[in-house]
Every structure is written in C-alpha cells, then in structure tokens.
C-alpha cells in the first residue's frame, strides 16, 4: 500500500528537513550550553558548538546542595516506575474485562471511563487533593505523588481497544472450555499477547510521570523533590549560572532520550495505533 503513495517532492523533503532541525535544535542547544562555560551567557549570536566544560558543570551540579539533584533523579525514577507498573497492570486488567468479558453495566461503565478522560483532574483536583494530603500527613512524601496517578482513564481505554482487536474471542472460549479461570486466562493468554501495547502505554506513562510538574510542586518540598522540582530549584536557588541550569536540564532529559532511542519505533507505532480507532 505504501508503494501507491506519491513520491516526496523536493519541496516536501526540504520542509521535512526544516521540521527536523526545528524539532531537534532546542534539545541540541540545551546540550551545547551544558558543555560550555558561563562566558557564553548572553553571547550573540548564541554558541552552536559544544565546549569542554561538561565535567566542570556536572561537578558544580553535584555540589549544588539546594537542588538535591541526585535525590530528585532517584525519586523520579521510583515514582515513574511505580506509576508505570501500576497503570500498565491495572489498565490491562480493566481493559481485558471491558473488551472480552460479559457483565451487567459494562457499557455504561465504559462510557463513564471515557467521560473521566475529559475531566482535567490535574487542575480540578489539585486543591482538595492537597487538603487531603495535608490532613493525612502525606504532604512532602513520595506517596503523595504516586497514589493519585496509579490509574488513568486513557490507559484503560487504550488497553480495551488493543485487547479487542488483538485477541480473538475463540481463543478465550477455548481456554474456558479447558477450565481456565478468568485470572488464568489473563495471565497465560491476554498478558503475553499485550506485550506491544504494554510497551507503548508503559513508555508514555513513564515519560509523562517523569515530566510531571504542578502537583509535585504543590505537595512536595525541595528537600524531597522529583527531578523537575530539582530543576526548578536549580533555576531559582542561585545566582545566575546558566550553564548549571542547562546542565541540570540536559541531564534530566537523558533518561527519556535513552528510552526514546531504544523504543522510539514502538512509541511512534503506539501513537499511530491509538489514533486510528
């Protein structure tokens, strides 16, 4: 089918090349500044080539105690992994039920899930959740930024769509005839078949959680930050040290770039997959 597409014209190629440059430049530039000294601040035109100060900048980053950068990285890794495992697991369970099991109220409940996708919980829930966390004494602790994100409607919906088309009903019927319980069907048939969807949902969830900012800013303190809070502390705590801020920013992006390089193909596939429906 791809062969029937028209060939890319020169104009198209130039345009795409321009888009690539525009997309990549700010990220590239972030890394460039991270390797330069503070003498480049405010330099016009801005420096475009890396320098040799990365080691020095990293050293200063570790030495900047107010930012708690290492703790921020660790905390973000913990929060993002926990949330990812939970979202993937609970979404696939619910998605499986919605796609393949018969039960009373299935459709209304599914509509309810869809409706909750439209509510901007990030904004709507921030005040009551904060009051709640303060009352529970959880403000400042990691569980305050983990618990509210353990499930999300998008995940359930995404998994339902995938299970629906990836697993034939006959397979499940056959397993039932063999005496498999529902949970067993999930483990031995559904879960393995979901691997591509799990990869995509997991990666997207991880990236999103890693980049979460508002809620951690409200409920955590700079003493026990996520990496985004460390960044914002780095930006705010100190006298103008651009290269330091850029080094932190670049470093906080490295894990996601690694993920992107390793799994970019699946992420692209997943976004396009989810969109067709």
């Amino acid at each position, binding site marked *: 089918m791809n062969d029937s597409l028209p060939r890319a014209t020169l104009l198209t190629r130039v345009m795409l090349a321009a888009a690539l440059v525009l997309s990549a430049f700010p990220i590239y530039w972030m890394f460039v500044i991270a390797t330069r000294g503070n003498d480049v601040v405010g330099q016009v035109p801005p420096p475009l080539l890396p320098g040799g100060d990365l080691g020095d900048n990293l050293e200063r980053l570790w030495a900047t*105690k107010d930012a708690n950068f290492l703790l921020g990285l660790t905390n973000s890794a*913990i929060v993002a992994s926990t949330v990812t*495992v939970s979202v993937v697991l609970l979404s696939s369970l619910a998605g499986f039920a919605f796609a393949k099991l018969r039960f009373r109220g299935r459709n209304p409940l599914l509509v309810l899930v869809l409706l909750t996708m439209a509510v901007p919980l990030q904004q709507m829930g921030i005040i009551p959740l904060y009051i709640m966390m*303060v009352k529970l004494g959880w403000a400042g602790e990691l569980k305050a930024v983990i618990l509210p994100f353990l499930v999300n409607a998008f995940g359930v919906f995404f998994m339902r769509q995938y299970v629906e088309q990836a697993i034939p009903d006959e397979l499940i019927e056959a397993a039932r005839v063999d005496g498999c319980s529902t949970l067993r069907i999930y483990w031995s048939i559904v879960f393995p078949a979901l691997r591509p969807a799990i990869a995509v949902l997991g990666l997207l969830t991880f990236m999103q959680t890693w980049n979460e900012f508002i809620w951690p800013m409200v409920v955590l*303190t*700079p003493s*026990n930050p996520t990496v985004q809070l460390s960044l914002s*502390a780095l930006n705010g*705590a100190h006298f103008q040290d*651009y290269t330091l801020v850029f080094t932190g920013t670049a470093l906080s992006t490295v894990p996601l770039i690694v993920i992107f390089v390793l799994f970019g193909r699946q992420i692209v596939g997943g976004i396009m997959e989810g969109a067709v429906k």
Partner: protein
Amino acid sequence: MKLSRKTAALAAVLAGVLAAGSACGADDDGGSGRITLVVDTFGSFGYEELFTQYEKDNPGVKIEHRNEKEHEKVYVPKLLQYLEAGSGAGDVVALEEGILTSLRGQADRFVDLADHGGAALESDFIKWKWDLGKSVDGSSLMALGTDVGSLALCYRTDLFAKAGLPTDRAEVGRLWPTWADYVATGERFQAKVSGTRFVDGPAALFNAILSQEAPKHGNYTYFDTSENYVADKNPAVKTAFDLVNSLKAKNLSSGLKSFTPEWQTGFKKDSFATMACPAWMLGVIKENSGDAYADKWDVAAVPGGGGNWGGSYLAVPKQSKHPEEAAELAKFLTGPQSQIAAFKAVNALPTSPQALADPQVAQAVNGYFNDAPVGEIFAAGASSLQPVRLGVKNVEVRTVFEDVLIAIGQGKLTPAEGWTKAVEDGRDKAE
C-alpha cells in the same frame, strides 16, 4: 512453568519498587543518631562557612540549606503554605522584616525562643531589632535578628570614568546630596554613554527612597500606626513613586526587575551603572558579577542621607521535629561572631552592638569593591538607625507597587494610570 516465572518476575519488580519507595521519605539518617536540620533562606545570607563550622562542632547535626533567590513571589508564598499546612517548612527559617511583621500575630506557629535560652541574648542585639523579634503581645520571642539594610549607593567606576564623571567615592557622594541631584547626574551620564542605563530598575530604588521618606511622614509607609491603608495619602509613597518614574521618563533606567535572570545577566553585560545598595546587596552584586568585575564597583553615600531598608530574622517554626536543636542553631547563626562572619561573606550588616563595634566590621574594607571602607560606610550609622513601621499586609502591597512600576517601565501604563492602579490594587490586597 512459564506462567509462574512471569508472575514471579512481575512480583519481584513490584516488590522492588515498593521497597525502594518505602525506604525513602525518612528525613533522618537511620541509626546514626544524626539529625538533619533544614535551613530556609532567600537572597544571600552568607552562611555557608558557618554551616560547615557548626556541623564540625556538632557531630550530631547535619544541615540542609535551601536557598531561594526570589523573595516576595516564590519564597514567601511557599513558606506561608508550609506554615499553614503544618509541614514542609525548614527547621530554621529566614524572615524578612516585612513578612515577620505580618506573622507577629501568629506566635503560636513559632517556637518561643525564650524557652531555649533566648531571653539571655537581649544585650546581643540593637534594641529595636530585639523588640521586633517578639510577638505582637510581647509574650513570645519569635525570632532573632540577623542583619540590617543600611543604605548606600553602588556605582561602576569604569563606566563613570567613561562618562567623564568623578570616580572617587567621596566625590561621587558629593554629586548627589539629594535624589534630584542623582537624577541630574544620571542625565549627565546618559548623555555620554549609550548601551548602559544609569540605574538597574525601579523596584530597589523605590523601596530605598520609600524607606528614606517614611521617617519624614510619621515613619510608616502603606499603613498608618492603626493599620489603616494610607498608600494614597502618605506623601512618602507618592514621592518615591514619582522619583522612580522620573528616571524612567528621562530614559535613565534599564527597567529590569530585581533577581530575574535578565537582571542578573545585566551585571555581566554592563546593562546599568548604579543601583541602590542596602548593605547585603554587596554580596549579591559580587555573586552576580563574578571575578571579572572585581574593582569595577564601588560604594558611595546614598542621596537623601542614609536610610534603613530593613533586614531579616531567623525563627523556628513549631512544626520542626527538632525544636531544641533548631533553636540552638538559630542562636548560633545570629550570635555576634556569626554576624561578623556573615558580614565578611556577603556584607550583611550586623545588628549586634558587639559585632558592629568589632574592628573586623567597623574597620572593614571590601576588596571586591575597590577596597571600599564598608565598615565606615555602613556600620558607623547602624546603631542609630530606626525601623520604619510596617503594616501586616506590607509585603502584598509592596508587590503590587513593584509590579506597577515594572509595567510603567514596559510602557504599558502611564505614571498617572499606574498610580491609580497601584493604589486601588493595593487597597484590594489590604482588605
């Protein structure tokens, strides 16, 4: 078999993650018996070496320092949020005079330092500094003083030379006995130099002039002694407002907002040649400018003859888990010897009579600022400084006025519109 291995693997991942999660969040180093004290400061307090020394002298204490450069819009709201939530604040928190004033009615949120041997320290502080550290009803010693913002004016000698102006600090001081003379000097400067503006921005100057004008008009600013909102009636406010705007109208101001990145970059880009300098500002200038600008800044007398910008305090919130140790640390940091150390580090002018009299302060010269005799300039008059009376909501109203001044600088409001807006928005905040 296959199934169970997968289950086991997943369970292991989950267990690992949960274990890692539960290992976190504890603020003390487990069994070592070492406690961590968190110290919250803003701007520049010059405590780094004191912390190292304190940790060495008190092996049971580890200090975590959290600094935030922006005061009104970032540091204060977060601190108030933590106080209200009952958790999150440092064990020792720095309070600027304005915010302390608004908290003096909430003594129940702070440890009474008199319970921790604080009362004996009265003679270590200038009287008014000591008195302001007590709660409104005088029953509780809420905070101990750190510094006082005695006023001077900082200027760039190299840029003054370029403009054909004198560079010697005594001669420069004679250029501007009044603020009108200061503006006139600015016009002379600007006629010769382009690319650099005469002054950094409106906010610092406005606060400096206001703190000078206030004593002439009942010694208060936005609120009178009965807490009535009088920003529209107090001539001190209007005088300061108009003076700052006249600098803008004559195109003498860089229009930068203090403590923003562009303001900070401005130090390295020669964006401005003078700025109002409360004592602690010297530390800020040095940190922002870096070694390349050593000896390019100098300190002269401020127009209008001296003034008290205010200063800061340290307090221990009740929510601290280690109030005893935190109080000890606060006492240490505000003691005469520590005040001398902070003065040496960032020119935070002491509020302890002993420290002020100490030759290390009184006869100090600042190497970075052309060996300016900072002891003489700042310390000499410090004992006679009087505090301006501030209202409970002064920080909120001050923020409104600063924002409006920035907007006028951006050309978004005329001075007249700005005045009306500042007065009315300030009234909203005051209520």
